[in-house]
């Protein structure tokens, strides 16, 4: 637990020292979301309908952007090897890194989403559901992304490859996340979708650090 917290603290500190990286992904999210009304037209009824999907797809892409750096810098300066040698299981340390990644890239998206949702004329109730679905869903993106990041560590053309590997696996999160908001707007209630997102999250928390660790050990050989 101690090691988990110290990895978490270290990664957060590193992110705080390099604010531009965190902010770039955030601005990317804002710009992508703002481009859609410009491309489609300002008709509010249509915008309200596509808002959940647009926000969720933009969140997927923004989460992808920062995945490259999840392990790359630690791999370059040898920190990752020291982590693999330490007495604490590597999967615990990976868990700490993933949590730090979510806090720096996922949580800001969750907090920013309602503001962008206002551009799409979403009701305050829908905004709440959107935040809740992103709160449950963005950790899944970080967890699955960690597997992809570990697999493509130090591989030629890693960035594009990462998106090819990870984006198909993001589809369930996208469907249930955007579906929760749509179901609520249609009056069906978002409970089922949110429960399924929660189930996916539980599955991811259990399996993803394990798979990512196996992939990291491979990259370190």
């Amino acid at each position, binding site marked *: 637990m101690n090691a988990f917290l110290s990895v978490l603290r270290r990664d957060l500190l590193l992110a705080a020292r390099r604010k531009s990286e965190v902010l770039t992904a955030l601005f990317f999210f804002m710009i992508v979301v703002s481009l859609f009304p410009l491309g489609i037209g300002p008709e509010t009824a249509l915008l309200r309908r596509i808002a959940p999907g647009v926000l969720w797809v933009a969140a997927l892409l923004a989460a992808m952007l920062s995945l490259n750096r999840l392990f790359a810098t630690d791999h370059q300066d040898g920190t990752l090897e020291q982590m693999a040698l330490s007495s604490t299981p590597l999967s615990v340390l990976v868990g700490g890194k993933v949590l730090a990644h979510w806090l720096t890239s996922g949580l800001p998206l969750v907090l920013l989403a309602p503001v962008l949702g206002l551009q799409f004329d979403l009701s305050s109730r829908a905004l709440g559901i959107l935040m809740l679905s992103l709160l449950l869903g963005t950790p899944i993106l970080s967890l699955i992304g960690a597997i992809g990041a570990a*697999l*493509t560590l130090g591989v*030629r053309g*890693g960035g594009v490859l990462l998106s090819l590997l990870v*984006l*198909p696996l993001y589809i369930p999160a996208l469907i249930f996340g955007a579906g929760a908001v749509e179901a609520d707007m249609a009056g069906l209630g978002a409970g089922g979708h949110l429960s399924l997102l929660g189930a996916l999250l539980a599955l991811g928390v259990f399996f993803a650090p394990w798979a990512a660790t*196996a992939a990291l050990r491979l*990259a370190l050989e």
Partner: protein
Amino acid sequence: MSQRLINWFKFASPATFYPLAGKLWPWFAALAAAFTLAGLWLGLFVAPTDFQQGEGYRIIFIHVPASWMSMFIYCVMAFWAAMGLVFNTRLSGMMSAALAPTGALFAFLSLWTGALWGKPMWGAWWVWDARLTSELILFFLYLGYIALTSAIDDPRRADKAGAIVSLVGVINVPIIYFSVKWWNTLHQGASVSLTKAPSMATTMLWGMLLMALAFWMYTIAVALCRVRAIILEREGRAQWVAELPEMRT
């Protein structure tokens, strides 16, 4: 260990598997050709014309077996991947790598023939039906596997990384299938069902089964051929390769 009737691990070595695969693949290729001929004959000449869909339905004899195989091959790939991780055998990774292009081919074939079938039947090349969508995602999973394994130069790492990807994928395939299915019902998408032939004529069913067998045999033959090529590529410097009869001539 050596007292057993068949020593399964004997053929886990590329050196012993290479000649075995060389002996086996022509048989599977011949079986594939025979089943294809029988299946196509039954499908194109014997099977009756569908009273709803006319002659257009006959693409089913390619379409359905191709979709079956694309899903089945992914499971086989994951099985070999798990074998490779558990027993640390080199051949398992090679088998996985040899199966992937065929699986991707069948996934693509299934999408293509589906589009050709959809146009006259539903009036659209593409419908966001749950099965079509999940087949498309399966195709993407194959592409991801192939892209990852070909981007890594070290074959050992490529095999293991591919193994992890295919295992993660095989856990995700049912999740993706059901999520897409529920997504489709929520959206009230085009209400078409691919299973609208409730009482399929037995000759049609037989034609389909024969074609499925043919594709199966084709997959085995091609995978064996490809695994032979991969073995030669990776073990080219080994002594046993130099001693092969086809190398001496």
